[in-house]
């Protein structure tokens, strides 16, 4: 018997939907992936709403910012064998999480005159609400990485063997950056978080001469204290902390530093 096509859903919570566009932007490559799968509830290409069937792999992008978002997230968890946090917002809080580090709920006063009746929660990563089986990191995600890991995730879902869920190799951004032939930004005195951040993005930022700001998150062996010390020469502790806020990295660094 032929293997059944995997049922895959992409769910967008509040977000820029950029991770979904990374997939669509792959053009023919993505459409040939779609041909081999059964895409359920893919809002960007179809109008009919799916019937609520069981799903093999669900990819969730964005933040749960409305009550509806939270409901959707919990419902889809029930239907999914494997749930993937797709991108920085779902995995680490993304740029909306900046508000947690500063004025919190009061941030709304800079934007709206009437704030009654607007749901304005603290920004939380999706793993605060549901179990997450795999993180596809980045802001946005890397499309090639999606194609690389999806077959394993589908296999894990279809066989129920969770040992098939892949683990992204613990290697810093620097490995790919060097391979791309880039001059090290740190050696030029420019801030870059490359050494403590999980590789797999082809060092796209340093290649564009933009220092890594950590959207893919800390790598398991990432040494935050050594990174802080190395960056002391060109940024104050406050600047370091501020930069780690952009992609919701600050709380992870603080947790790591408490552990050690």
């Amino acid at each position, binding site marked *: 018997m032929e293997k059944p096509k995997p049922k895959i859903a992409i769910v*967008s*919570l*509040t*977000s*820029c*939907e*950029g*991770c*979904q*566009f*990374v997939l*669509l*932007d792959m*053009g*023919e490559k993505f459409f040939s992936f*779609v041909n081999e799968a059964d895409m359920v509830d893919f*809002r*960007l*290409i*179809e*109008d*009919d*709403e799916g019937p609520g069937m069981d799903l093999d792999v669900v990819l969730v992008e964005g*933040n*749960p*910012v*409305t009550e*509806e*978002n939270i409901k959707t997230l919990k419902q889809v968890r029930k239907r999914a064998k494997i749930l993937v946090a797709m991108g920085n917002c779902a995995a680490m809080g*993304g*740029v*909306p999480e*900046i*508000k947690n580090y*500063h*004025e919190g709920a009061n*941030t*709304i*006063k*800079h*934007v*709206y*005159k*009437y704030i*009654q*009746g*607007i*749901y*304005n929660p603290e920004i939380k990563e999706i793993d605060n609400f549901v179990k997450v089986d795999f993180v596809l990191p980045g802001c*946005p995600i890397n499309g090639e990485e999606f194609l690389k890991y999806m077959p394993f995730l589908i296999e894990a879902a279809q066989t129920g063997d969770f040992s098939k869920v892949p683990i992204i190799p613990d290697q810093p951004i620097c490995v790919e950056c060097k391979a791309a032939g880039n001059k090290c930004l740190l050696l030029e005195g420019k801030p870059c978080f490359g050494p403590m951040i999980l590789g797999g993005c082809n060092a*796209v*930022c340093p*290649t*564009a*001469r*933009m220092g890594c*700001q950590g959207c893919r998150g800390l790598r398991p062996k990432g040494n935050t204290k050594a990174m802080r010390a190395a960056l002391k020469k060109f940024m104050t502790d406050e600047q370091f902390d*501020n*930069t780690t806020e*952009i992609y919701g990295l600050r709380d992870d660094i603080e947790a790591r530093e408490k552990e050690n």
Partner: protein
Amino acid sequence: MNIKINHIAKIEGHTGFMASVLQGDVKSARFEVQEGIRLIEGVLIGRHYPDMPTVAQRICGICPVVHNLTSIKALEAAMGVVVTEETKKLRTVMELGQLIHSHALHLFFLSLADFLDMDNDIQLIKEYPEETKKAIKIREYGMEIVRVIGGRVVHPLTNEVGGFKKAPDADELRKLVADSSEVLKLALELGEFFKGIKVPEFYRATEYVCLGKTGEYAIYDGEVISSEGFQIPVAEFENNFHELQKQTEVIKRVEHEGKSYMIGAIARINNSRNKLRPEAEKYLASLNWIFPDYNPFHNILSQMTEVIHCIEESAKLIKELLHSDLNQVVTKPYEIKEGTGVAAVEAPRGTLYYRVEVDGKGYIKNVNIITPTAQFLSNLEDDVADYLKEILDLGNKDRERRLRGFIRAYDPCISCAVH
């Protein structure tokens, strides 16, 4: 009778729609936005200015380029940073690439199925494989422009206050020029195909607003102009176009003299059509529209015309850049100064406006962002209320389908509108 659509797929972001009709009279037609608040303007306050383009472009995954460029231009205006002509030209090319790929996505993959009475794009791709290939190639060309200049398509990397972190590779630019004639040919063929698509004959007069500039089809720069003969510098925008928040609404709508107005491709075509590049001008003429053209469905064909124009214009500008010193785009040292700056750039969906205030050390004190969808939302509702009268007699399912198609033709971006 109440007409309710819980969720409109195939647009950017989350929204539903609700209308109430009493004895054939449309009493109200309103969007029910389901998008959460990310408070991007709020989180920018207190941050150092280089963070602004990085954070602000994450408002939208489909048009990050224009958020990036507009925030950079506003910061430069605030601090009095002057950039080179080469930088302006390269930024313009990037924005043209943004228009090409956003339009190609919308007119083919998001909107077309509605006019062929198809339920989804999988059917569309199956029945129109040749056209699909053309649309993908055109879209990829637009994305390639953004990648070559910006380093990445979704959330580009090289742009910054003062210029670019690095100049694009000249060989990659040459390749874009070399490919442009083939892509232009594909766009003209796709344009012919779109001419055969029947859209409803629905007309409602409105005011068209966009950037305007002498001698060019304004995209990166210009003054604010309107089809009513109105013209103001961008600095006067907020004095004339008023944001208003209704209680519990998360989109701040915008009005001009107490009325709704329209922006985007159809507004630009109406106001600036005599400045199109030759092939785009010929294509538009072949549509035989009578101007001003007030059919909102023509937004799709306006986008098609702009795709053709942007391919021609970007090739011309890249050629000019290749004849100049490309290193002039690399950022030179500048002074951080206190000030307030405003800027506007034409996004795929219309004029995007930013105002920013920075202190003497470059920390952000205040930000206001007015997005295209927030500006045209009321116009869309006014249009829908009128259009609904014409389709009231249809069955529920058919009517809902027509409504969805109408809303999608506008190409709304709810993620941008709420931000």
